[in-house]
C-alpha cells in the first residue's frame, strides 16, 4: 500500500509538471502581448515598453519559462500583472469561498443521491422508483446557470428569503450573512450534481442486486435489505467512488459558472477576470492550483477504493 501510494504521488507530481508546461505554452500561444492589455489603448510605445519590462514579457520565451518553473518549484506563483497582489495570497482568499462551496455542495449531493439512488434501484418496479429515475434523467439535462437563475427568481426575488448574490465584506467575520449567501449557490450545484450521481448509484445498486453473492446471501436466510446492507453496498460503493472523485473535480471547475451567477468572489471569478485582463500569473496560478486539487481528488478516490476493495490491494501487491 505504501509503495503504491508513493508511486501514485510521483505520478501526481509528474502530471502537475506536465500541466504547468502545457499551461505556459497555451497562454503564450495567444496573440498579442499582455502589456498591451495592461496599459490600455492609446499608451505611448514607452509606456508599453515600461509595462513589458515590469511584467517581464520583453524577455525571450525560454528565459520566461525558466523563471516560471523556478518560481513554481519554490511555490511562488508570482504577482498579478494587474493588481500587483501576490497570486497565492489571493488564491487562498478565493479558496475560502470556493472550497466550502464545492465541498458542501458535494456532501449535500451525496446525502440526496445515495439514498434516493438506492431507493430507485430497489423499488425500480414501483411508480416512485421510476419517477426518481426520470427526475434524475431530466436533472442531468438542466444547465447549471439556468437552475441558478431559477432559484434566485424564486427564493430571492419572489420569496425574499435569501440574498440573490454577493458575499459579505467581512467574509466569515459576518457568519450569518456568509452562510445565507452560500445557500443558493450550494443548492444549485448540489441539485445538478445529485441528478447524475443518483443514476450511478442506481446503476451500481441494480448490478449488485442481480449478483450471485447476493442471491447466495439470501439463500442463506438473509432478508433482501439485510443482504444489501451487509454485502451489497460495499460492492456498489467501489464504482460509485471513482465516479465521485470525477464529480468532485467537475464541481470544482463548474463553480466558475455558479460564482458568476451569484457574484461570489471565488476562484472561478478570479479565473474569468484573469482571462479578460490577460493576467497570466493569475490564470496560471488558478489553473495550477485547480489541477493540483483535481489530481489530489483522484488520488484520494483511488486510495479509498483500495481500502474498500481488498481485491484491488492484492492486485497492487502483485
Amino acid at each position: 500500500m505504501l509503495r503504491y501510494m508513493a508511486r501514485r504521488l510521483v505520478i501526481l507530481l509528474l502530471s502537475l509538471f506536465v500541466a504547468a508546461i502545457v499551461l505556459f505554452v497555451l497562454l503564450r500561444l495567444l496573440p498579442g502581448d499582455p502589456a498591451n492589455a495592461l496599459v490600455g489603448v492609446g499608451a505611448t510605445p514607452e509606456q508599453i515598453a515600461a509595462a513589458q519590462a515590469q511584467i517581464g514579457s520583453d524577455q525571450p520565451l525560454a528565459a520566461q519559462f525558466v523563471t516560471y518553473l523556478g518560481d513554481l518549484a519554490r511555490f511562488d506563483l508570482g504577482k498579478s500583472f494587474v493588481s500587483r497582489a501576490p497570486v497565492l495570497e489571493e488564491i487562498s482568499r478565493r479558496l475560502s469561498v470556493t472550497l466550502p462551496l464545492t465541498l458542501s455542495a458535494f456532501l449535500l449531493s451525496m446525502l440526496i443521491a445515495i439514498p434516493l439512488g438506492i431507493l430507485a434501484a430497489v423499488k425500480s418496479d414501483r411508480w416512485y422508483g421510476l419517477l426518481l429515475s426520470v427526475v434524475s434523467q431530466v436533472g442531468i439535462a438542466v444547465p447549471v446557470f439556468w437552475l441558478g437563475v431559477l432559484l434566485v427568481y424564486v427564493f430571492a426575488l419572489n420569496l425574499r428569503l435569501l440574498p440573490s448574490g454577493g458575499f459579505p465584506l467581512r467574509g466569515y467575520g459576518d457568519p450569518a450573512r456568509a452562510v445565507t449567501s452560500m445557500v443558493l449557490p450550494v443548492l444549485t450545484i448540489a441539485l445538478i450534481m445529485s441528478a447524475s450521481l443518483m443514476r450511478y448509484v442506481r446503476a451500481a445498486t441494480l448490478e449488485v442486486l442481480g449478483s450471485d453473492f447476493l442471491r447466495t446471501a439470501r439463500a442463506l436466510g438473509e432478508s433482501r435489505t439485510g443482504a444489501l446492507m451487509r454485502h451489497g453496498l460495499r460492492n456498489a460503493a467501489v464504482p460509485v467512488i471513482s465516479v465521485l472523485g470525477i464529480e468532485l473535480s467537475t464541481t470544482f471547475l463548474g463553480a466558475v459558472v455558479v460564482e458568476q451567477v451569484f457574484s461570489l468572489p471565488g476562484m472561478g471569478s478570479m479565473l474569468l477576470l484573469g482571462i479578460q485582463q490577460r493576467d497570466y500569473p493569475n490564470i496560471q496560478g488558478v489553473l495550477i492550483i485547480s489541477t493540483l486539487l483535481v489530481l489530489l481528488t483522484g488520488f484520494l478516490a483511488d486510495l479509498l477504493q483500495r481500502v474498500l476493495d481488498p481485491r484491488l490491494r492484492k492486485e497492487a501487491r502483485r
Partner: protein
Amino acid sequence: MISITDITRQGARGRSALVALTASSVLALSSAAALAQDFDPQAVINIGSLYEPQNLDNTQGAGQGINEAFNGNVYEGLFVLTDAGEVEPKLVDSYKISEDGLTYTFTLKEGVTFHSGEPLTAADVKSSIERVTAENSASSRKRTLAVIAGIETPDEQTVVVTLSAPSISLPYNLSYVWIVNDAAGDISSGEDGTGPYTLQEWRRGSALAMVPFDGYWGEEPTNGGVMFQYFTDATAQNNALLTGAVDIITSVQSPDALSLFTDNPDFTVSEGASTTKELMAYNDRVAPFDNAIVRSALARAVDNEKLLQAIWGDYGTLIGSFVPPTDPWYEDLTGVNAYDPESAQQMLAEAGYADGFSFTLDTPDYDPHPVVAQFLQNELAKVGVEVKINIITANEWYTKIYKAHDFDATLQEHVNHRDIVFYGNPDFYWGYDNPEVTRLITESENVASMDEQTEMLAKANRIIAEDAASMWLYLYPQIVVSTSNVSGYPLNGLNSQFFVSDIKKAD
C-alpha cells in the same frame, strides 16, 4: 469598453446652458424630494457597480472603478470636475497665471489634513503631480501633463508650476491628479487622501467600504458611509437592487432590465448626460472613405433615430458630431448630413459610386456593436452599399485597427470627456487629416482665455461634422437607478466619477 488616452484640452466655463439647466433641475427636484422627508445621517449607502478597481492606485492601471470609488470621495485634486462638467477649485484657495501663460502659482487651502492626520503642504502637491508624470506611471493623464517643465514649492502653502508651452487645460487636467500624502508610499492597497471618506475595508472580488473622515475640512457627508458592492454580471446587480441588497446602481449598460424599475414606485430611474459615443469610424486614408462626399452620403443614408430607438428605446441622444453636450464646445449638429436617403444616392453618384461599393466593417464582438453593424448593413444596402461584417475581439481591434490602421471601417464606443482632440491628430487610428482642424485643435491649447478655446474647438467641431469625418451614431444614455428613498447622487458620472457625500437615505 475602450478608454482612449485622453489628449484632452480644456475650457472650464462656457457650458451648454440647456444641459446644465436640465441636470440642475433634476438635481433640484430630487433634493426637494429629500427635503420633504427626513434623512438618516447614519445610514450606510450600498452602491452596486460593475467596475471593481484592480488596485487602489490610479497611476497603476487600476481601471475606471478606482475613479468611481475614490475621486472626490477619498482623494481630492487641486481642482474638481463637477458632475455638471465645470472645473472648480478644490484644494486650491486661489491661483494666478503669468502673462505668458507659462507659470501657474497655486495657493493651497488652509486647514486641510490627510486621513493620517498630517497637514496638506506644497510638497505633497509636488510629489502627487510627479506620481502621475513619473516614468513608471500608467496614468492616462501622463501625456497631457508632460507640458509641465518644473514644480517649485517656495513655502508650505504655495506651488509654482512652470510649463514648456501655454496650456489652458491645466486646471482641468489637474482635476484628475489625486493629492496624496507624500509620506504614504505604496497606495495600491491603502490610501492617504484628504477626501470626506476614509477607506474602511476592501475585499477583492466583493466590496469596498468607506466611512466619513472626522477631520474633513469641508462639509460633512449626509450619510454614515458607503459600500461599493461589485458584480461581474449585470443581472446579479439588478437582482441585488430588486431585493434591497443595494440602494443604487451606478450605470445601466443595457436597456433590457429597465422595465423592472421604470414602472415601479419603489425605484427611481434617472437619465443623466453621458460622454460615451457610439460611432462608425472610417479609415479616412483609404478610398472611398478619403472622399468627404462619400462619407456625407453614408451619413445621410442611415436613420440614427431608428437605430437609437431600436437599441435604447426612449433613452440616449443623437449628437450629429463627436462632441457630447457636457463638453463646453458642444453645439447641436444633428442637422448636418441629416437622414436623407435620396440625397445620399445623388451624392454617391456624384462621387462616382452610382452603383454603390462594398466594404468590410470590423465589428467588436460585444454589445451593442454586432446589432449596430446589422442595422448599418440593412440601411446602407438601400443605397447600394454592401457592408461585410467582420466580427473581431477587443484585442484584435487594438492590434489590427488601433495600431496597424489595417481596416476599412470599424465600430467603437469612445467614452471620454473632451476628446474631440483626437480629430486633430492625423496619426490617430481613423486617419482624419484636415490641416485646419489640426491647427484649431493644437492652437486652442495655447490661447489666453477659455472663451477663445471654446470658440476654436466649436469651430473645429463644425468642420468635422461637415466633413462627416466619422459616422456618429448616438450618445449612450447614462442611467442611474436607485430605490426611491435614496437621493442626492450624481447623474452624469463624468469620467466615471461618482461623488457620494451628498447621498441621503430617508428613514
